[in-house]
């Protein structure tokens, strides 16, 4: 199930400076695991203890995966997975 992953600037040193990569996986977690195989170090930037980091937002197309099935959110051909740092709160 090939999907396109939008890589934020801060992770591009890990992806040979590629802005987008094509990865295969049936859900978000599989895509991240697959990315880890190709680009070691990505996984720990995105998840810990089976959960996405609080300060990272993962979107499938326009949907925040926290409001779907989290890392088990399923993917279909041509979906776009976007990784964005999050900011919640001031002070």
């Amino acid at each position, binding site marked *: 199930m090939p999907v396109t992953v939008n890589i*934020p*600037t*801060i*992770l591009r040193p890990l992806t040979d400076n590629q802005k987008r990569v094509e990865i295969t996986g049936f859900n978000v977690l599989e895509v991240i695991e697959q990315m880890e195989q190709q680009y070691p170090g990505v996984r720990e*930037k995105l998840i810990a203890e089976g959960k996405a*980091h*609080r*300060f*990272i*937002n993962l*979107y499938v197309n*326009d*949907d*925040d995966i*926290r*409001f*779907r099935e989290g890392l088990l959110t399923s993917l279909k051909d041509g979906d776009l997975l976007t990784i*964005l*740092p*999050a*900011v*919640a*709160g*001031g*002070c």
Partner: protein
Amino acid sequence: MLIRPASMEGNRNMNHPDRALSGCAITGLKSPAPDFAAMASSLFYQSAALGMEVGSIESCPDNAVFSFEFETPLTMPVACRVTRWHDASKQASVTENTMQAACGLMSVHGRAGGKSRPLDLRYVSTLTAALALQGGAAASIGQLRGLSVSSSNVSMASAALLSVGQYIAGATASESPERLSPGCVPSRACPPFTSLDGVVFELETLDAGPWKKFWSELGVSAAAAGKGWTAFLMRYAKAMSPLPDELVDAISHFTYHHIAQVCASTGMAICPVRSLQERAGDDDSRHIWSQGPWEFVFEGNPSGRPLSRITSDLPLSGIIVVESCRRIQGPLAGHLLALLGAEVIRIEPPGGDPLRGMPPMAEGCSARFDALNRLKTIREIDIKSPYGQTEIKELAQGADVFLHNWAPGKALLLNLDEEALTAINPSLIYAYAAGWATDRPALCPSNSMPGTDFMAQAYSGVAGKIAEASGTHCGSLFTILDVLGGVVSAQGITVALLNRCMNNVAGRVTSSLMSAATLLCADDFDGLYNLSRISPPPQSMIDAIYATRQGKIAVECRDRKMVTRLVETLEATLGAGVGMEEEGFSHLRDLFLSRTADEWVQILGEADVPAAVVIEDLADLHGIELLQPGLSPGSYTKVNSPWSFK
């Protein structure tokens, strides 16, 4: 003419010999009033709160600048000058609101408010006063450290640009700059929320989990709640929050009481938008107003270690600040100290602060993040680990200042509280840039509420004041209090350093979003407490934004003389009679349509009527001649230091 500042009448009650700058004074005040009246009012309040003697003010209408001397018992007087624009020779008359228009504040505030509009607060004036006072204190520190510095200059324009520095960075970033115009989202779609029984309130959570549960309880689909979360997160960075209609509609079907119950069960925080009157009735309110926006606790410094060695022409050069702060308020405080020359060591988590990757980007770093942190040295430390805490203690041992903005109680949990750090470095200034004014969770106004900008706006009465003045239901999604809180924190640290230099004392300085809110509304609290120490500038007769043939202008006429000049100028320009108050001023709207905003600003400027083009696109700011000295183009437009010293 000599005028005793009204704010100082009965000042004996406000004069506290035990305050941070007791024995110091601001003297020789000269004001080309009324352009600086609101700034002067805040300057007097802040100076008195620091325990300074405040001299009489001389009205000098022909002067181009507001000036005063910052005196301490141990230094030569520092000549402090406040100009309208960076270039003191530019005499274009200004007011609070025309400065907000010219520097983009109205634009940022208007993103969620439907259109460009003033904040209806003396915001630029308050910031300018704080920076002017801080400049005097910093220059005095410079003298005590052997630097030859005799004057400090700031401008109202530099203060205004500083306040929107992050938004300018976002609008001018080299990679996908933000194009956000006033009214780009419907104001109804943005927080605060309104319940079925008409209560206006803010919601807050720093995690998606409570948000998801809360909206589920109100019958909102997960998909809509998810889109709402994305919008909700935008508030701090973009000053807007386009929530899906489904959320706004759903919440309007429930009473405030019910919504508060759902919040309690789901972990969301809720705070009604209160009035200043309500805030004035809180137990701690009058104390904070009387104390000023900083709480200082000084103790003798037996080790008597001098400040670090000076390394450049800037007054705080060589001073070492260790900063462990996230987001806006604390990092801005560190940034200001760095602009004064301090060496700021910023602690970030292993891998770096995630906000470094927050779009829009410029040369590999978030432009918005870089705007607040570009001058700092970074140390990546896991503050939760014993090893990391040891590293921080080692840094603090060699530092002059330790600054954090952790949640209440966290410093103690980390064993990095004041007691722990001053035990290893008795000369340390321990600074806390808080949300709710205290590091003791039990004493927070509501220990269940995160101390964030919009919650503090709601609780403090600031949002209520904006809503009342603007005829809307909301405050601002511009981070008013984070920015002012950052300035107040840096100012408090500078004052504490001066006190350390003069009196060989060290200790703690705490400031907060709440204390910044109190500072911002100091005149109002004075009135609410019936003290009449401060006489706020009178309301302007005309204070409006007009559409023109191209662009908008903000025009403010404080008094009848100005109105007369405006009317005469319009008549001379248009060759027709222009009525006055009998029919109000609404008919002026049609008259301004005959020229462009730039043309009107020039025409009105020549007549000494305060007017400014309302900047709607922040990317336009660096093309404006009056503002160019305050900005540096590059991979994004950077706001320069508000201070210059000689």
